[in-house]
């Protein structure tokens, strides 16, 4: 029956619209369209690939952060992990022409090792993630400073520059390939492997997960390692893209908080159990587009952090689960209903 099919199609459409990824995509397109109207040079193909490329660092870090947040944790140490990875390959690259493939392996190992530190504190010592990663944030930050001894990476061999700025195929920068690759691998991992599914199980109900045979501690440990590895990879991407690194790399761009912002905007819930790499990626793109829009519209960049703050609040208000309670509170004059 055609009416039924139409009915089904319409409700399918509505369900899709309710999804955060779809909303974000629409928001990104809308924002770009509006800015383009105001400044006609906005949506050139080079600008578009510039914005996409610029979002890759945050995309990669955000994906790792997303997994940690799904398990009801948080990783505040991604900034120095990114930074340490960047300088660990940056100096050898600059001074000794470190092979780029070796560099990639190195950042993965570094991220792995630093992620183990977080994993140990959370799963073995039993320290709440926010405190544990706050501690490692300071420790790793100090290490980053010690390793650079105040120096800065200034020049890089051609390989790195190419990855950062050039296209693999005309029109598609290397960076976008890397970003897309990470997101796709993360989606496949989370949807189709038992460990990926275990992350959601643990985030939803760690107790039931344990009783069903899921090694909760091991999964949590693994999550922090993955986050570390991705932060390390992001360090590589950062180095290639920006072309320099020093003792404040990672912290100067507030990467840890921005990665949380990207994943929250992308639909991940701080209460755990929900979130998708695609959403996080769109969140990162959204922030990147917003960032560029601010520059193009000549809004003072000092207002950018404020904008991010507002976006985070918006994300919560429009969130499927926490949103309704917030919107209800806005309508009534009573305070948030404590009674569920």
């Amino acid at each position, binding site marked *: 029956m055609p009416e039924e099919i139409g009915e089904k199609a319409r409700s399918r459409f509505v369900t899709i619209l309710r999804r955060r990824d779809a909303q974000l995509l629409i928001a990104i397109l809308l924002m770009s369209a509006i800015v383009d109207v105001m400044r006609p040079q906005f949506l050139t193909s080079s600008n578009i690939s510039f914005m996409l490329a610029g979002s890759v660092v945050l995309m990669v870090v955000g994906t790792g952060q997303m997994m940690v947040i799904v398990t009801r944790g*948080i990783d505040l140490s991604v900034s120095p992990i990114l930074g340490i990875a960047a300088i660990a390959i940056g100096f050898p690259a600059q001074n000794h022409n470190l092979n780029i493939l070796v560099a990639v392996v190195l950042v993965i190992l570094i991220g792995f090792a630093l992620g183990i530190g977080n994993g140990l*504190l959370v799963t073995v*010592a*039993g*320290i*709440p993630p*926010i*405190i*544990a990663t*706050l*501690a*490692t*944030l*300071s*420790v790793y*930050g*100090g*290490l*980053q*400073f*010690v390793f650079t001894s105040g120096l800065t990476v200034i020049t890089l061999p051609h390989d790195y520059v190419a990855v950062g700025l050039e296209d693999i195929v005309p029109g598609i920068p290397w960076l976008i390939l890397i970003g897309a690759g990470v997101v796709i691998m993360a989606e496949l991992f989370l949807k189709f492997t038992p460990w990926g599914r275990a992350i959601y199980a643990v985030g939803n109900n760690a107790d039931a997960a344990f009783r069903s045979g899921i090694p909760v501690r091991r999964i949590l440990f693994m999550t922090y390692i993955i986050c570390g590895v991705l932060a390390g990879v992001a360090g590589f991407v950062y180095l290639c893209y920006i072309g320099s690194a020093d*003792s404040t790399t990672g912290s100067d761009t507030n990467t840890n*908080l921005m990665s*949380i*912002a990207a994943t*929250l905007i992308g639909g991940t819930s*701080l209460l755990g159990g929900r979130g998708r790499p695609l959403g996080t990626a769109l969140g990162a793109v959204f922030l990147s587009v917003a960032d560029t829009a601010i520059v193009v519209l000549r809004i*003072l960049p*000092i*207002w*950018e*952090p*404020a904008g*991010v*703050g*507002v976006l*985070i*609040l918006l994300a*919560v*208000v429009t969130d499927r689960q*926490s949103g309704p*309670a*917030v919107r209800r*509170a*806005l309508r009534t004059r009573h*305070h*948030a*209903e*404590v*009674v569920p």
Partner: protein
Amino acid sequence: MSANPAGVESAGMPVDLSADRRGRASIDQVWVWVLVLLLALELLYFSLTATGFWGGGKGMLTASSEFLDVSVMALGLSLVIFAGEIDLSIGAMASLVGIVMAQLWHVEGLNIWLATLIALVMAAGLGALNGFIVAKFGIGSLLVTLATQFIFSSVATAVGGESPPYGFPRGFLTITGTGSIGPIPADLIIFAVLALFIGLLVSRTRAGRSLVLTGHNRLAARYSGVNVSRTLIWAFTLSALFAGIAGIMIAGVYNAARDDVGIPLLLPSVTIVVLGGVDIFGGKGRVSGVIIASIIIGYVTVGLLDGGSTPLTATMVTGIVLIIGLIIKISLDRRAGIAFRDALARFLARQHLGKAPVAPDA
């Protein structure tokens, strides 16, 4: 009744310390003593290695001006953490207040004390806003203060402009930064007064009781008649206010107001509160622990900086101290540690004039 508290029988049920008879209260108090011990060790170390520590020159007391701003900030933050929430915006708030005060004085020509007052009132207002959003909308404080941290720091940069004001009047500097009454620095007096206030507030007032119960179980507090919204709002208000006071103290000590001084202080503040024994989930902990922890961390930081380390190294060591402290604390709660903890508690109990337990009716 036997003199040995651990063996007392009451109504047929053997009373046993490890069965939480004193339980959490015990661990809270025990932890405070552990911190006191740590502080004593630290002071001993410094008195042996640092010349003139106990008097004259760069002594123990004058050095305290350099870290008491963080201590004040931690005091305010502890209220929010007692309530089971967190305030990430305190760092940005400190900078904001310093800058607003400086601008009002320098650009608007206001009397510096009036400027300070206005800036602090603004801080309180913004804190109340934080609390309001958390209470009314039910959005987690992590999110809210994460967002407001971004917003406040933007505003601070905007208001401060290219070169924020410096060179404050002598009177101001003396009271908030470099002055002292006898050997005691002005900042220490400010801290002591504030510490006493917070300590009494939390443990000996009705408002403090509402705060702690809210942290333990928000729903039960509400059902008991506690006005949870109002409690949260004033907790965040005080947190922001104290952050503002810290901002003023910083401006006084360094004779300048900058937009980037505050945010690095967030980490040490949280470290101090957590190391001080306040449970990150709310309710449990003692203000005395926070006070002692702030002194411990304070001297560690100052000691390192004076020894030639950079601020980042000092932060790193702070992180390590936090990790070690937490591992010790957590192990005191686990099987192996319970025996040790009870022994310590019994030792302390013997120092008190303990009341005999009330024999309950059958």
